[in-house]
Every structure is written in structure tokens, then in C-alpha cells.
């Protein structure tokens, strides 16, 4: 009997019916739906015992107390330690992500910069160390320490001291401005000149205290002088819009009102400048009226202690001259005598080392050109101030090698010849040495939270290779702590907020235990003496100032617009941010990315650009594509750019933002592209 089509159809039909009356189709439907819920492409959460580890945040020097919530030994969140009253910033909240940064350097590697691309070739630690030239009389080494005050800093200084002709270099800011702290807590009137006082300029805890005082109406008055209606300007009691780049003129005019030229210790040239800079003469250049200037001055003198802060974009300064003027104005307002500004003490050196055996820090800009054969850049991941130009200048034209110890591929590290990555934050013991705006110096130790990634090398090992004296990282820190304990000064503050004088701590060992459990040692500075050497004006500075003021008075070119770079201060202490920062930059627009150029509606109209358009920003030789954002918060005639590390550039080590290379108030052109 032949098999007909009908038979096959019947068979198939019945088989289908049989399957329908089995769990197969129904369970498949269910399982496929579950597959869409739990498929392998959806990351699985970690499982395991949960622990809460008290520590501090060592991402930036501020050292805020944190509690790490760890799952199976890996931190899943960093929270402000309860009871400490010290909140964190977004960088701290995501500090535990940094170990998994996509630009993490897996191990020692050679770096090649080919055009825009950065190529790395890994090599073993031994090979990497072998590539370091031995340091002898001919060849000098420069160690760039971007986090001075740490245990390793002492070792660096000792090493440099033993090798004459070598340099222990620190960023210029650390050498100058950062020695003076501001007692914001005690001040009643604060004038913030182009300073994001309430937007991350200082630690979150101190900002929060200012906000708290303001909302309690305790008499705190915040004045803001800023070209843009910045966040600080918005939150301030009074805002004075000034022309971009006129900060120095404003300060000189205020010095004039304070009769600073009558002060005996003023240099004659400076005295002359102040004397002739009457409010009437410079008001127009600043973009305000003389009455407004007098009014601001009245406010400053009405209720003391008064403070003038000129922090620039972030914790870095506007420029050295402005810093000096601010220091003199503060002094004129009596801040030095009433303790509103103080000279921050230095952290005691490690046990076994003596201050006199250590090299003095050289500001990086003071290192002579073409003088070093080996550059070691440490703490690169923890800042973004330094430009490659400031380093390359110092290199000996012959054989020279630049070694970065950065755990991530930062903009600077991508220019180095060799990277010997140190552990990422929270992979080993970390240190916090205190915020640059604070009146106190601090020292805190953060515990390792992550399992340490193989390939990272403690900086002590690199230094030990050069000096021949190897010390363990933890041992170096213990020595530092012992040094602090030996000083017998200051107090420790535990995460729950209680404080103990160091004198009542039994020994270096118990200080170490306390610090490794989240306590922080602090030592308040004395009122700043009349002479903070670094802030005294010298003749050349005065000349520069005079030139600038006359340039400003001339009005500059009116056809161009001024570039005002701004940085969200916390990011200046972290050159690579957690990828999660896309939430603030790309995903909410709360902070502008480096490609955003904000302008006033009138300026946009004059330049022929629209909101959201892509335009070309040209400043001197520099040119860059920017995305225009039209904002009513800005004065016409300026363009605001985001400076600092590119917060969203975590995918490739692209060149830093345009704004980083532009000085404040630089004339620029904005054109439709």
C-alpha cells in the first residue's frame, strides 16, 4: 500500500495534537520567558556573606570617613560613615569602581603614542625595572609627587636628598596656595571670587556645614563674584557678575578700599598699583559699578571674620598673582590675625627619617628645562592638573625615560614611556593627607577592600629598586603613623565622631589600629603669620599684574568672546572617574561634558549658533568642535567650557579637554561648523 500525502498529513496532525497535550509547548513558552528574565547577558549580582568595613576614602586627599559594604569580600558600596557627619562626594561614592576602570593598566607595560592612539606592550616586572636607568651623579631623576605628604613622599624626599641634582617636584599649587587654609566654619562673611565655594571646592562636609548654617540663618553671608551665575552664585546671598578674567582687578580694587597701600610691609611697586586702582578706574573693566564695589567692601567689613577665597575652577588656583592678591586682601581684612586663614602644618615625617635628611619640594615649574634623565610620576591617577608640556620640558634631550606609576591609563600616563602600575584605590592601603582648603592637616589610612589585581606594583618597590632599600608598602605606612604618633600633636577622630588627643593614644601600634579602622588624625594650623613666603609678591609678579590690569582696562578685543573654563572641583582629584559618572554628565546633563560650550542667548545669536548645534571654538592655535548650550546664566560675551579630565572618556585615553589648555579669559571665536 503506497504512503499517500494524506497519511503523512494525518500522522503529522496527530503528532502535533500529541505535543499540544504535553507540557512541551507550554513549558517552552514559560522557560523562554524566564530566559528573557535571567539570560546569561544579564549580569548576576554577587552572593556571599555581607560585611561592613569602616575605612576612609583615599581617592582624594580629603579622606572622608566611609563604611564599605562588602559582599564576599568585594565592596558593593561606599557610604559615608554614619555618625561621622561627613558626607561623600559622587567620586567617593563610586570610589570602589575605580579598580575596575576600563582603562586600568593590567601590569607593567611600554607605552607608545601613535597619533591619537596609545599602544601598550606588557612586559614583566623585572624587565620593566631593568629599563630604569641607574641614578648616579650624571643622571638626575625627577620624582613628580602629586600627592605629597604620604609615607612614600618621605621616602622620595630622602632618596632625592641622597642624589644631588635630582628633584622632588610637586605641582605648583601644592607648593604655594595649599599651605594656607581657610577657616570657613568661623567666617561670617565669605567672598568667593570665581570660586565654586559651594560646589565641591572644599570637602562635602564643609560645604554641607556652610549650607546648614545658611539655612539656619546664623548670620553667615556668602558673596559671589563670578562671570557666570554658577551654582555658588545661585546659592549665594549676593552675586556680582564680573567680566571674565577680571578677578585680579577686583581684588586690587578691594585692596584699595581696604587702604592696603598704607600697610608698611607692602612693596613700593605694589603699593603704587593699589593706590592708583580706585574703584572708579577699574569698575568698568570689572563689569560692575563703583558703588557695587564699595558695597561689597562694606559687606566684607560689616561682620567679621571675613574671608576672600579665590580658588579658581577647582582646588587649583586661578593664577599665582591672584592668589597673592587674595592673601593680601585677607590679611587686610584681618583674617590672618583672627585666624580665618591659617598656615596648615606639615604632617610629621616617617619614623626613622629626619626632616633635615629630606629634600625640599620643588614646584614643578621651577625645575630647570632639559635637566632630568628619569621622571617618575606618582599619584597621577589622583589629579589632573599637570600637563604633559610641564613634564616634557624638563627632560634631558638625550636618553630620558618617563615612568608613570598610575594604575589607570591617564592622559599623562599615556605619554609616559613605561607604566609600572601601582594598586588601584582600595586595593592596598591608601592614604589621605587632608584637603587643600582646610586649616588642618590630616592623615588617614584606608584599608584594602578589593582583592588586589595581579600585576600592580607598590611604588615602594620601584623606589626600592632605585635606592636599593626596599620597604614594604604597609611597613612604610606604619613608619609614617609611628612618626605621627611620635609628634604627640593633634588628635584622632573616630568614624563615630568622637575625638581623642594623640597624647592619650598608647602607642604607634594602637594609632595604626585606630587609623586602619577609619579614624583620622588631624592637626589644626596656627593663624597664618604675616609672611607666608610663597605668597609674598616679588617684583616680576607685580610687573605682570600691572600689565594685566592695564590690558584689562584697555578693554581687550570686543569682537571676540572670552573663554571661561570651569571644573567641577572633585574631579580634579581624580583623573579617571567611575564609568557611572555618565549619570551626571551624559545621562542627566547635570554637569556639562568637555564638549559642551555654554553661551548666553545674545552671544549665541551674535555668533550665529543655536542651542544644541555643533560649533567650532577657536582660541589662538587651538580649535575644537563643541556642542553649544545656550544658557541664561551666563553673561554675554563669554563661553563657558568644562575643564578637567574628560569625565566620560573612560573608554579610550583621548586627549584632554580643550579647556584644559586654555588660560582663563582667553579670547576665542565661536563659529557655526
Amino acid at each position: 500500500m503506497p504512503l499517500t500525502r494524506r497519511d503523512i498529513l494525518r500522522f503529522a496532525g496527530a503528532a502535533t495534537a500529541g505535543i499540544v497535550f504535553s507540557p512541551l509547548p507550554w513549558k517552552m513558552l514559560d522557560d523562554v520567558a524566564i530566559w528573557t528574565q535571567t539570560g546569561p547577558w544579564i549580569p548576576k549580582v554577587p552572593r556571599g556573606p555581607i560585611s561592613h568595613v569602616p575605612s576612609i576614602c583615599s581617592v582624594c586627599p580629603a579622606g572622608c570617613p566611609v563604611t564599605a559594604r562588602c559582599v564576599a569580600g568585594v565592596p558593593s558600596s561606599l557610604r559615608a560613615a554614619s555618625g561621622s557627619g561627613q558626607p561623600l562626594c559622587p567620586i567617593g561614592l563610586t570610589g570602589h569602581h575605580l579598580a575596575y576602570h576600563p582603562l586600568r593598566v593590567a601590569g607593567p607595560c611600554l607605552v607608545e603614542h601613535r597619533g591619537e592612539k596609545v599602544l601598550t606592550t606588557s612586559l614583566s616586572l623585572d624587565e620593566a625595572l631593568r629599563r630604569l636607568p641607574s641614578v648616579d651623579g650624571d643622571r638626575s631623576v625627577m620624582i613628580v609627587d602629586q600627592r605629597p605628604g604620604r609615607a612614600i613622599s618621605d621616602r622620595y624626599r630622602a632618596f632625592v636628598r641622597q642624589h644631588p641634582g635630582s628633584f622632588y617636584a610637586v605641582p605648583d599649587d601644592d607648593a604655594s596656595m595649599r599651605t594656607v587654609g581657610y577657616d570657613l566654619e568661623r567666617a561670617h562673611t565669605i567672598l568667593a571670587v570665581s570660586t565654586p565655594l559651594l560646589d565641591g571646592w572644599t570637602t562635602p562636609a564643609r560645604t554641607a556645614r556652610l549650607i546648614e548654617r545658611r539655612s539656619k540663618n546664623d548670620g553667615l553671608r556668602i558673596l559671589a563674584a563670578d562671570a557666570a551665575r554658577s551654582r555658588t552664585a545661585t546659592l549665594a546671598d549676593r552675586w556680582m557678575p564680573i567680566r571674565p578674567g577680571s578677578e585680579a582687578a577686583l581684588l586690587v580694587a578691594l585692596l584699595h578700599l581696604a587702604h592696603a597701600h598704607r600697610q608698611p610691609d607692602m612693596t613700593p611697586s605694589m603699593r603704587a598699583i593699589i593706590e592708583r586702582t580706585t574703584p572708579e578706574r577699574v569698575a568698568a573693566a570689572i563689569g560692575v559699578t563703583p558703588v557695587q564695589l564699595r558695597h561689597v567692601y562694606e559687606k566684607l567689613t560689616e561682620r567679621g571674620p571675613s574671608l576672600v577665597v579665590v580658588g579658581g575652577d577647582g582646588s587649583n588656583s586661578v593664577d599665582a598673582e591672584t592668589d597673592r592678591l587674595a592673601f593680601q586682601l585677607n590679611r587686610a581684612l584681618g583674617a590672618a590675625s583672627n585666624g580665618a586663614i591659617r598656615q596648615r602644618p606639615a604632617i610629621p615625617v616617617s619614623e626613622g627619617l629626619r626632616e633635615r635628611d629630606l629634600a625640599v619640594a620643588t614646584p614643578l615649574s621651577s625645575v630647570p628645562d632639559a635637566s632630568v634623565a628619569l621622571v617618575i610620576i606618582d599619584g597621577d591617577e589622583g589629579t589632573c592638573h599637570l600637563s604633559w608640556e610641564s613634564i616634557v620640558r624638563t627632560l634631558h634631550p638625550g636618553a630620558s625615560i618617563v615612568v608613570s606609576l598610575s594604575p589607570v591609563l591617564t592622559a599623562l600616563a599615556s605619554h609616559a614611556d613605561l607604566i609600572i602600575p601601582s594598586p588601584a584605590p582600595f586595593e592596598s592601603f591608601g592614604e589621605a593627607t587632608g584637603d587643600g582648603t582646610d586649616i588642618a592637616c590630616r592623615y588617614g589610612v584606608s584599608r584594602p577592600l578589593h582583592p588586589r589585581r595581579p600585576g600592580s606594583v607598590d611604588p615602594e618597590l620601584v623606589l626600592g629598586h632605585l635606592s636599593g632599600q626596599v620597604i614594604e608598602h604597609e611597613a612604610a605606612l606604619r613608619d609614617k603613623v609611628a612618626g605621627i604618633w611620635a609628634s604627640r600633636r593633634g588628635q584622632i577622630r573616630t568614624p563615630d565622631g568622637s575625638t581623642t588627643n594623640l597624647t592619650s593614644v598608647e602607642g604607634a601600634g594602637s594609632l595604626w589600629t585606630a587609623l586602619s579602622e577609619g579614624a583620622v588624625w588631624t592637626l589644626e594650623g596656627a593663624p597664618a603669620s604675616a609672611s607666608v613666603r610663597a605668597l609674598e609678591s616679588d617684583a616680576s609678579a607685580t610687573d605682570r599684574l600691572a600689565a594685566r590690569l592695564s590690558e584689562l582696562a584697555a578693554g581687550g578685543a570686543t569682537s571676540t568672546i572670552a573663554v571661561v573654563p570651569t571644573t567641577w572641583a572633585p574631579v580634579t582629584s581624580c583623573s579617571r572617574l567611575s564609568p557611572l559618572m555618565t549619570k551626571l554628565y551624559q545621562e542627566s546633563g547635570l554637569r556639562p561634558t568637555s564638549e559642551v560650550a555654554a553661551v548666553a542667548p545674545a552671544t549665541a545669536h551674535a555668533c550665529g549658533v543655536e542651542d544644541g548645534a555643533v560649533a567650532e571654538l577657536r582660541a589662538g592655535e587651538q580649535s575644537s568642535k563643541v556642542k553649544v548650550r545656550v544658557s541664561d546664566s551666563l553673561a554675554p560675551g563669554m563661553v563657558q567650557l568644562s575643564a578637567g579630565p574628560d569625565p566620560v572618556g573612560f573608554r579610550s585615553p583621548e586627549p584632554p579637554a580643550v579647556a584644559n589648555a586654555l588660560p582663563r579669559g582667553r579670547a576665542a571665536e565661536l563659529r557655526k561648523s
Partner: protein
Amino acid sequence: MPARYGMVIDLDRCTGCGNCTVACAVENNIPPGPPGVTDRTGITWMRVYEADNGEGFPETQSAFVPVMCMQCEEHTPCVSVCPQNAVEVDPETGIVGQIPERCLGCRYCMAACPYHARYFNWWDPKWPEGMEKTLNPDVSPRMRGVAEKCNFCHGRLHTAREKAAAAGNAAIDPADYVPACVESCPTQAIVFGDLNDPASEVAKLSRDERAFRFLSRLGTEPKVSYLSSRAWVRSLADRVLARDQKEEARG
């Protein structure tokens, strides 16, 4: 009595620092935005907007407004529109819960939400390699193609409940249940608690004369209130108010 969790956000204290947004993302396992993400395709359960008074420079004034799911109590717009019960109001807490595993991804709820507080997973959730080890075990990551939103850190409520249950208690200790944004706010601008507890700070503040709620005339009874002593900020509550305020300022 069941709880009615709510929030009061003091706009005079908010500095727009973004802590809440970031802490929220860490707590709730929100992945970093992929390349090409924008403020319109990203996921920020807690999002800080900058609002201004509409005047030109230098009369501009601005305020930062953190916006998250307002946990509407009545006619909850997202609940009634969801075709498959992926959203509901928990009668015990008043929290509007979204279940991504049930969600079909039709985005009707997003169109319906007056606060734009709902977010869609346009991409697969991806963390840089290894970073998924830092995920919060109390919150499951969502998959591509579903909507999600703030649920007042429900994972923390679980933790608090578990702690209470282990101690044999039915009620949680309010101190154990604090959402991440509240906890992380440096200026303590956000107050969280049970609106049904008249003694709670949040209940008191929500009745403050500075208090207002956004779009309250829609009748959805949001459980998040805002505080401001500035009249123009309060007038941001809805467009009729904003118009009246503008007219008042002019006339």
C-alpha cells in the same frame, strides 16, 4: 496601620551636586551609560534638573530640582495603564513598584508618567569587566527592553524587614530604612519617612508652608513634596501657577 512612605526635598538646600543620582545608581545597580547615551536615553532614577525663573542674565535665578518617581497615590498613571500588571501600588507601603521581569517594554507607562520619572532600558545592562562584582546583591539588574524607576530603594526595605523579622518584630526600625539618595545627600536636603506617622519629620515638613508638590492638580497625589522659601520656585509646581507668578512679577 500601613505605612505611606514619602519624601520632602528642600530645594533651598540642594546644591545640585549629584550625589543622590550617583548613590542611587550604585544602590540600584543602574549600569553606566553606553557610548552614545544621552540625557534622554540614560537611566537616572533620581535626576537633578536645573530650573530657572525664565529671566535673562543677570536676573536669572535657578534652583536644582531632584526628580524621582513621586509614588503617586491616586490614579497612579503608570499603574492603570500597564497591560500586564507589572506596576502596582503596594498598599502596605504606598510604594509604586515596577517589576521588570513582568514588563513587556511597551513604554505606555512612560508616556503616561507626568514626571518623566520612568526610564527604559534601551541597551543591554553592561558594566566594565569585573565591575559587576561590585553590584548590590539586594537589587536585581534589569534586562534590555523593560521600563524601570525609583522604588524608594526597596532593597533597603527588604534588608530592614529581614533584620526586624530576625529579631521577631513585625515593624521595621525607621532608622534601618533610608533610601540611598537621602543617605548620600550632603546637605540633608531630602527627608524620608512615613507620611502616615504624624510625628515623623517628613509628615511635619510636608505640611510646612514652604511645601508644595509638582503637578498636584493632576490629582495623582504624589508622595514627594518639595520645600522652598522662594515664591518663583514654588510657582514651578504647575503651569497655571507659573503663569500667575509671571504675571504678578510683571504687573
